[in-house]
């Protein structure tokens, strides 16, 4: 079996019914998809399969043989963050960070799919993602900002002693 993961072609040795999540984390060492509930209920393992957000814990790797898989590692780089990553940083949309990979993938797919940025459609797109820190307000703010095309100077965001959530940068 073969997968193209973040633009790189990989041949897969795992058993065909191994979950895509286990293949990514255990065989390929790509650990942004998180093993949360491992039954489709939390969203933290979400990756893009041929540009569509999918639960990697609900897919046997044989079902996606030949597919293009994108994880957070493939969205941007530390020097050049993807727009959703910039917005999440600026809006302080991560607390413990466990749900963030899945949120970023869903948010990226939502924006790429032409999401309008209104509250209701963002909620619909992220409905399968659970944040147990309950940081939903800032996550939705960040997704709306990305959909609007907001731009951020993250050097200022990072330099702010109080961060944006406390009013340091407007």
């Amino acid at each position, binding site marked *: 079996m073969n997968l193209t993961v973040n633009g790189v072609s990989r041949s897969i040795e795992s058993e065909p*019914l191994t*979950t895509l999540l286990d293949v990514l984390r255990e065989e390929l060492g790509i650990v942004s998809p998180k093993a949360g509930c491992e039954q489709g*209920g939390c969203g933290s393992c979400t990756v893009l399969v041929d540009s569509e957000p*999918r639960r990697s814990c*609900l897919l*046997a790797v044989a*079902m996606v043989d030949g597919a293009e898989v994108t994880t957070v590692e493939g969205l941007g780089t530390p020097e050049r963050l993807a727009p959703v990553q910039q917005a999440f940083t600026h809006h302080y949309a991560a607390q413990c960070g466990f749900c963030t990979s899945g949120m970023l993938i869903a948010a990226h797919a939502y924006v790429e799919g032409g999401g309008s940025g209104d509250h209701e459609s963002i909620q619909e797109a992220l409905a399968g993602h659970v944040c147990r820190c309950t940081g939903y307000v800032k996550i939705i703010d960040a997704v709306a900002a990305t959909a609007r095309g907001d731009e951020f100077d993250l050097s200022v965001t990072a330099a702010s002693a109080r961060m944006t959530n406390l009013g340091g940068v407007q």
Partner: protein
Amino acid sequence: MTQATEVLVPGSADEAVKLFGDGNDVTVIGGGTIVVPELANGRRSAGKALLLTRAGLAGVSRNGSRVTIGAATPVQELVGLEAPVGPCAANVADVEVRSQGTVGGNLCAAVDEVPRGDLQSALLAVGATVRSAGAGGIAEQALEDFLPERDGRLILDVSYDEPEAGSFVALERPHAHVYTALGVSAARAGDGTIRVAATGLAAHGVRLPSAEAAADDPGKAGADAVDDVSPTDDALASAWYRSKTLPVLVRRALTELKEQA
């Protein structure tokens, strides 16, 4: 353990039927949303795994008012259909999971602590027929006859005539990943026949004949519907709660149907 004795990936519907055979020791994997985690956490062993991903069984087609839905069609693809099917599909899981889970899997989902298969009420209400393969070859039967004896069958497609009017009502889910505790669908066919069906009351979706008989009087239909079922307690709701809310949902569904006269 996720190993199987054999993993079969048919490239056509005919090949899928042949490889499924009489279904003995075959685990069918459509979208994988139910079966894959059960395999991964060891709650199920696969035997022979039949993957429908490339079997060409996905897609919705129309011939006049006849709608035919392939077994491997993602539930999300039904969201745009007329009530009750469209709104019922929109109430299944969240948009990402229902884009992966299939109609065939939804109709075959067994009870797992709670009744699953939230689409069944809508497809029962529109009088859907199921074409399935298995021992004795390909058979076509009404969905209500198929559901009690679905073990050992491979669904190929489901079809129905678009109803003249339809409605779907359900108890709200606390989160997108929870199965519906109680859902009621009603539909009026072109010949005036009214069908009412529910999920959350038994191992699979059921018609509510007493409610259908009193369909002209939604309040009475709701009260009578309780006679058709014997709900049980589970993690989602108690039998008492279901028996108290069923009349309300039936009344609302039929009232909504009447308003579409």
